[in-house]
């Protein structure tokens, strides 16, 4: 029995470790490729470890994608902050100020989470042109804020729904109004919700390709994922530069994930509506 048990425990760990290797393999490949000097980079020895550590691949890729990396910061940070703020207000209303039809309205909001963006791209581009936002970073921020409304409202609504109504009622008796309750009762305890939403929006917006591609036609204003894709198209043979560029583009979200994984996990569950 104990032998059989040890055997099955071993098998479980074997499968887990094999899958861990599978999930890490692409990162391993990006890292070792970026650390090779140019004369070592050969597709026939793709899996060989680098001799010494060189940053040739990374520095050449960085030259190519640095302006777009900055664009992505300029887009992602304001868009995540603004949409988190809007979401906190909307979530507060949907959770604590129920009116007739507010649950139905909320469901109609949620539909937006599942919309394939292709379904609205044509009128979106026309509208952005009419508003003078087409082709600009502000335009990209605007679009991300609009399409962040459903998910941010959902996340904050779930969080605020867990705050007892008695607390809100007590604040009302003490003379707090609509804004007072938000400012003095809910905002001070909403840090975890803000963390989840900011991380979710940061990851989603940073990783976006389609909106950046369609809204910004000038490659110099494009976000980093558009630049990485262009790099992959233009420098077809210099695959180590592509790989290094890809790793640079992936780094901010990977760092956020490793540093704040707990909040990221909560976002995952909320994103499936099962939070």
């Amino acid at each position: 029995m104990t032998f059989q048990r040890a055997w099955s425990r071993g098998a479980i760990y074997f499968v887990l470790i094999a899958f861990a290797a599978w999930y890490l393999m692409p990162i391993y490949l990006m890292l070792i490729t970026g650390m090779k000097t140019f004369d070592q980079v050969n597709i026939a020895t793709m899996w060989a470890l680098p001799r010494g550590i060189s940053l040739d691949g990374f520095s050449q890729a960085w030259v190519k994608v640095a302006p777009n990396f900055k664009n992505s910061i300029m887009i992602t940070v304001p868009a995540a902050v603004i949409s988190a703020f809007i979401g906190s207000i909307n979530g507060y209303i949907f959770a604590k100020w129920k009116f007739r039809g507010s649950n139905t309205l909320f469901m109609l909001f949620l539909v937006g989470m599942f919309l394939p963006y292709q379904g609205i791209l044509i009128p979106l581009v026309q509208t952005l042109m009419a508003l003078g936002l087409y082709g600009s970073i502000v335009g990209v921020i605007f679009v991300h804020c609009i399409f962040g409304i459903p998910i941010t409202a959902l996340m904050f609504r779930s969080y605020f729904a867990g705050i007892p109504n008695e607390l809100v009622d007590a604040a009302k008796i003490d003379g707090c109004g609509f804004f007072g309750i938000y400012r003095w009762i809910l905002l001070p305890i909403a840090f975890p919700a803000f963390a989840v939403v900011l991380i979710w929006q940061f990851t989603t917006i940073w990783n976006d390709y389609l909106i950046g591609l369609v809204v910004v036609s000038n490659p110099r204003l494009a976000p980093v994922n558009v630049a990485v894709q262009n790099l992959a198209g233009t420098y077809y043979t210099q695959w180590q530069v592509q790989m290094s560029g890809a790793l640079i583009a992936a780094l901010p979200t990977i760092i956020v994930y490793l540093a704040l994984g707990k909040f990221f996990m909560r976002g995952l569950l909320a994103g499936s509506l099962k939070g």
Partner: protein
Amino acid sequence: MAAPANAPRRRALRFRGDLALAIVVLTPSIVAVAIFIYFFIAYTFYVSVVKWPTLLPDYTFVGLKNWINMFQDMRFRIDMRNLVLYALGFMTQCIVIGFLLASLLDQKIKSEALFRTIFIFPFAVSGIVTGVVWRWLMYPSAGLNQLFSLVGLDFLKSKWYTDPTWGILAVTIASAWQFSGYVMALYLAGLRGISHELKEAAAIDGANTWQLYRRIIIPLLAPVTFTAVVLTGMGSIRVFDIPAVLGTGAAFSTDALAFHMFQLTFQSNKMSSGAVIASVMIILAGFLVGPYLASLQLEESQ
């Protein structure tokens, strides 16, 4: 001293005023959702039934002509076939791997948090990055094939995404790498919600591990599986980034609806044709999202 008698009424009035204020504050978001989601969807359907063949808008009504042309279009038909294969491959991998890893992690594993972190991290990586790396991992003369040669597993070598028939399934390997950890997280949360008493009761009744999973755990996790099917189905309908990197393949063997729509609309300026594909994508998404949201509403009203 009439104040105590009046106070509740005044509070009630104040409350009603605050409720009105809440609705006013919510209004800009309602307007934004109404325009950017619902009106835009309707507008896309409208564009699909007008002429608009070039950049210049032409709102001459042509009925279902664009739709009929599209359904006879070879590339569109290949896209629909690719969608079916992609959805099957992507769903199967995500659900099987996700469930397997979640069940294993639920066995009181040492360093569970580390495994969980590794399994989920690809979800923090963009589709473009995933595509770039997997293009080289599945490059026929390099990557995985080279690795298989090194360890003597040559029979595992494949043409991957360059295969003219099954290339689209290779694309799902890259997408499942990215998304299966998410599905695992959903299953793990589900497994943690099953009470220990239930598992112990089954064990006392003499159920073996297989029966426990077959009769108790898998049925109890059916809602999670439903969620996973909806999410991976949505992912299949809107997949864009990975085909954008890997290319459409020989004879569109790795093409996707979303990519076809993008090229028609923004590279060939065929607005109405692009709008037909966009409308098809919305209808397909509706088949998944409708039942899903309905099931959530049921849960909430219970």
